[in-house]
């Protein structure tokens, strides 16, 4: 009966065409897969490229050369006052603003603009530093490089589109003309922006720094780590090694798995309702931020810890029990050291996530405008991602590069942490 069936003639043109069609489909499908990956990759490169090209100028600043007269009368201090007992105080009360203003006004008048168009509001700080280093300057007239105003900073970095109409750009024609004259006289230069790397937030972009937020992040993460690492590891030990199979254990497991998937903003609401309103802890403080992030990071560490301990072979436990170790000794002397690299990897990844987290910290008020580098766990502070969020809201054009530069700083920290996690995993991970 099967003789009635005609054997397929694969060489026939019809079948050949069909095979070709199928192969074409195969190639198309494969190409689609590659295209999807390429698209995802290009998003990534476009994202990082935009951030980098916007942000690298944030690490630079433009300075202008001014001839400054350190007039003892105008300053209100002299050398002996600085070198005396209250020298620091004398420096802080000296009228460097006035001296700066005089020098800038003189220069600005010759260029036909106002003093504040040329120099930054904080330029006088550079004079104070100079005198602190070398009190002999008082009474002399020297050329000093001081930070320029935000507008000149943009001009110096070539970030102003000169061909748009004057009304549509932040810098006026007069300022551009003045800048070009200074440039022709070699009186402007671009240097590393030390302010950005050493100061805290400010209302003017050229004075704003990232160090305050970075230190806030460090303090917050320190609290997070101190809380969630021990608690997370102990929870993982209990669940993986000792917990009896009962309702209570199920309840713990369910709550950990759910906490791992709860949106981060909910933890912010918890922090607000419990830590701030119920316990009355201070707003904007790193300790509250650290507590909130610790609750959020806890499930990550527990889950990583359990996986790491599960991968330690049972034979090790049996051998330890066999030579007379107690249950506790088995875990603390054998399982835990073997699982530690995995636990640490999970912890670092959890910490990296906590470092990039913004929403819960907004809820507990860490969006405060903080112009001082935070000193302790209860002083108001902000953190890197929140600082990025705050700067991204600023209208001033100069904050665009600051935001991108802050993102670069954050990404560098994240890369270092993840790199460390990968290194630990590769170096210490054992395969049984």
């Amino acid at each position, binding site marked *: 009966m099967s003789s009635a069936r005609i054997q397929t003639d694969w060489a026939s043109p019809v079948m050949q065409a069909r095979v070709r069609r199928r*192969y074409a489909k195969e190639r198309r*499908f*494969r190409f689609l897969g590659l295209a999807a990956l390429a698209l*995802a990759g290009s998003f*990534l490169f476009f994202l990082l490229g935009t951030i980098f090209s916007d942000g690298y100028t944030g690490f630079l600043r433009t300075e202008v050369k001014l001839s400054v007269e350190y007039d003892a009368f105008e300053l209100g201090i002299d050398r002996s006052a600085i070198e005396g007992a209250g020298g620091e105080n004398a420096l802080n009360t000296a009228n460097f603003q006035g001296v700066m203003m005089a020098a800038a006004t003189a220069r600005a008048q010759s260029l036909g603009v106002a003093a504040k168009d040329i120099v930054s509001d904080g330029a006088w700080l550079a004079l104070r530093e100079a005198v602190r280093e070398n009190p002999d300057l008082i009474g002399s007239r020297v050329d000093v490089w001081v930070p320029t105003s935000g507008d000149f900073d943009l001009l110096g970095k070539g970030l102003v589109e000169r061909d748009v109409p004057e009304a549509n750009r932040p810098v006026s024609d007069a300022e551009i003309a003045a800048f070009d004259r200074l440039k022709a006289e070699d009186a402007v230069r671009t240097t590393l922006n030390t302010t950005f790397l050493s100061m805290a937030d400010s209302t003017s972009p050229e004075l704003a720094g990232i160090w305050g937020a970075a230190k806030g992040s460090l303090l917050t993460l320190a609290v997070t780590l101190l809380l969630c690492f021990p608690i997370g590891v102990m929870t993982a030990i209990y669940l993986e090694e000792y917990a009896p199979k009962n309702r209570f254990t199920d309840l713990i497991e369910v709550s950990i798995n*759910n906490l791992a*998937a709860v949106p981060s903003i909910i933890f912010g*609401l918890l922090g607000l309702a419990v830590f701030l309103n119920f316990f009355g802890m201070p707003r904007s403080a790193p300790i509250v931020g650290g507590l909130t992030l610790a609750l959020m990071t806890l499930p990550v560490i527990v889950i990583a810890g359990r996986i790491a301990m599960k991968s330690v072979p049972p034979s090790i436990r049996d051998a330890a029990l066999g030579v007379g170790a107690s249950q506790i000794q088995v875990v603390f002397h054998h399982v835990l050291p073997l699982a530690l690299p995995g636990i640490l990897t999970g912890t670092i990844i959890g910490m*990296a996530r906590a470092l990039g987290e913004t*929403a819960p910290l907004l809820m507990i008020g860490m969006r405060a405008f903080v112009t001082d580098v935070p000193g302790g766990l209860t002083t108001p502070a902000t953190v890197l991602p929140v600082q990025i969020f705050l700067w991204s809201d600023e209208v001033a054009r100069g904050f665009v590069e600051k935001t991108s530069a802050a993102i670069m700083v954050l990404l560098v920290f994240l890369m270092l942490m993840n790199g460390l996690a990968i290194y630990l995993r590769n170096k210490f991970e054992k395969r049984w």
Partner: protein
Amino acid sequence: MSAAALIFALLGLAVAAFLVARARAAAFAGRRVFASAADRISSIHSRPAYHGWYVALWALVPALILVLGWSLVGEGIVADRTIASLPAESRPQTALDRQAFLAEVRGVVSGQLAGAFNPSADAAVPVYRSIKTQWSLVIAGLAALLAASGGGFAWLRVRPHFRARPRVERFVMVVLVLSSLVSILTTFGIVLSLIYESIEFFRRVSPFEFLFGTNWSPQTAIRADQVGSTGAFGAVPLFWGTIFIGAIIAMIVAIPLGLMSAIYLTQYAKPRSRRIMKPMLEVLAGVPTVVYGYFAALTVAPAVRDFALSIGISNASSESALAAGVVMGIMIIPFVSSMADDSITAVPAAMRDGSLAMGATTSETIKRVLIPAALPGIVGGVLLAVSRAIGETMIVVMAAGLAANLTANPFQSVTTVTAQIVQLLTGDQEFDSAKTLSAFALGLVLFAVTLCLNIYALSVVKRYREAYE
């Protein structure tokens, strides 16, 4: 003495107790002349270190509990005493006054303020200082007493045959159980605080209006004489905006890209290119959401608006749903991809090999065999991705805007639950106004929805795994 200094002192004391007790126990083990090795082993029940731990824990734990408890409630007690010691007429009347008063006193005491603005606060400063010193001394003394008596009690029990190890181990066990309680407490804390504040909210606004009303404008009049709205709390536009951005636009981007990436990585890519491409997706997953938000607001949103204007849509917003949704989709790609990757790899190799042996091409095998077999796992992964997308905050806060529109036009602005929570809670508002409380009601809805999605998705994934095991 501050709590931190006390804790450090106690820790130092505990270390000392550990060393001394260990040395004493070691002396038991080493002092006698032993007839045999067996005698030597049986002469001391626990190893010296356990005796050390036993004494150290007794010296440390009770005192530490006292100090920690004091640092929680101490400030309140000192404040109460200070205010009670003032003459009745200069005591602050309302809770708000009280707070300001105490803040001033503390500022002066810590040296941050040069002098108090309020004269009665100025008068309270020495009182506060003396009460605080008094109480700190009392607590420090009590802690020292507890540490000494605890340590002394334990020290007296250090004998060769004392069973120190089981006792220390029992303590370790208790600590393990206690720390695993933290996650339960957190869950209950979340649920209770959300429900408590939501009930407060629903006392003012009916749940029916909240869940089914279509008008959202939470601005309430702060003063009675203010001309303004009484606030409308119909959250449907918010729910719609959340679904529109997180579950529709983001998924239209993330599902095809994530799924095709996973297929290419598992089925086509050579191990070497896989080693390069997989970390690339992981980097995409590791970028903080605030960076995506900045990218969405600064780069994508203007581009989307210009595009909309160029195709003739005049009312395009610069805070369009499309920009936020697309960027959120990009963020979710790695998540979808890794879930799909797991599900496809879990399909037994025999099914794939069988299909290939029958002459099907790789793409036919994927489309007709692997994907149907892996579908429950993929669907579960997508549901998890949706739950993550609707809980995502920073992208929508920065790129989606705050206008509560009920529109299906992706070029218009919509707002989401998370964006509104941030908006409602970051302004200056007294805590128990309907406006602030509504954020907790929104949080409760968000929590409930993501919880249900997660539980359902995980059960789907689990059932799928079991089917192939």
